[in-house]
């Protein structure tokens, strides 16, 4: 019996006293590393397999510390522990990817919501712009109608011509003023009242009043006379309500005749006051 027990005890003692092979040391370390980390929670089955492999290696070490079987089983146990770690890492990465994909979808939703809000705001702005454009169009049409109506009304009162510089209303000098005078005749005021009424319907337009004379008398006298007459007509129209800033008066003397000064009729035509209504958007001279 003693002959049987003694070798067994000696063998056990031999294992206890033996230095474990490098493979077993590495296997133990690999298992320790994977068992204390997250792998135990994420890949428990693989960690368990690694534990079993290490246990087999430990038993082989106890049986025969130096055998190839001990070394090989320890080698395999290390690989099983590393395998458990790799699988746990893979599962962790997969979870991360799933979370990232969910975040991507959520962000896409945020982007879409913001785009919808911007679209709504843009549509509202477009509708508003369209409405204002329509209103502006209507206002323009109304203003054009007023201008056309005014021109028609003027045509019934005085000579009216459409020129590049604007609508030109020509009033005879002898109707408005006494000879060589710059004070409006009383009967001229009635005519000017009617003209003023029409002009006030287009008060947004700028107006220039030009005084003209015939060639009788000196240039300087005619310049002074024509300026005085233009000023008189301007003052009257301002008194009727036309904005002072929108109405200018110039005396041009005998410089721009419309008829031959050699005849009495021609001279009468040259003695005139012109009221020029500037086209829309043009300032007065």
């Amino acid at each position, binding site marked *: 019996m003693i002959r049987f027990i003694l070798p067994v005890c000696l063998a056990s003692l031999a294992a206890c006293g033996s230095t474990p092979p490098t493979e077993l040391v590495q296997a133990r370390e690999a298992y320790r590393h994977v068992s204390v980390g997250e792998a135990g929670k994420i890949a428990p089955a693989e960690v368990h397999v690694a534990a079993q492999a290490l246990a087999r290696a430990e038993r082989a070490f106890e049986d025969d510390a130096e055998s190839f*079987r001990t070394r090989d089983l320890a080698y395999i146990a290390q690989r099983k522990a590393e395998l458990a770690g790799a699988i746990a890492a893979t599962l962790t990465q997969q979870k991360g990817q799933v979370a990232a994909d969910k975040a991507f979808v959520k962000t896409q939703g945020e*982007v879409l919501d913001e785009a919808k809000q911007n679209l709504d705001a843009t549509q509202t702005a477009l509708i508003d712009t369209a409405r204002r454009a329509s209103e502006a169009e209507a206002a323009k049409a109304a203003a054009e109608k007023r201008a056309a109506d005014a021109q028609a009304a003027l045509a019934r009162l005085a000579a009216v011509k459409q020129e590049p510089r604007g609508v030109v209303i020509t009033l005879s000098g002898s109707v408005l003023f006494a000879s060589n005078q710059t004070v409006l005749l009383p009967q001229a005021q009635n005519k000017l009242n009617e003209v003023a009424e029409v002009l006030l319907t287009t008060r947004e337009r700028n107006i220039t009043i030009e005084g003209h004379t015939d060639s009788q008398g000196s240039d300087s006298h005619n310049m002074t006379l024509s300026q005085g007459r233009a000023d008189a007509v301007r003052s009257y129209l301002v008194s009727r309500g036309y904005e002072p800033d929108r109405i200018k008066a110039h005396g041009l003397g005998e410089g721009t005749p419309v008829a031959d000064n050699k005849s009495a009729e021609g001279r009468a035509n040259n003695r005139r006051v012109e009221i020029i209504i500037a086209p829309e958007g043009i300032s007065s001279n």
Partner: protein
Amino acid sequence: MTRPLKIGAQLFVFTALLAGCGSDPALRTEGSASGIRAAEEVGAANVPRASLHLQLAKEQLEKAKKLSADGESAKAASMLARSEADAELAVALSHEDAEKTDAKAAIERVKQLRKDNNLLVE
């Protein structure tokens, strides 16, 4: 049984035993070979850690074959088990690398989307 028959039967059994002791059972390399093929197919050669274990698996498979040819069947089988373990690890490390790349790409995709739309990058 007569004496000659007894001797003949004993001789037969002895010869059969001798035949059994002299030849090694065939080494089953399919597990290791298929493991190595699987590792190659998932691109283990392109992943540093995986390619190391793939190489180890191949070397150990060859060692196992040599040991088997030398009659060291137990050692051959043990070496084969090492080869299988390395091949299995090579496959797992390749998968881990691929998942890491995919996860990183997914995170970058979110960051880029937020950046492109002037949203705060979390």
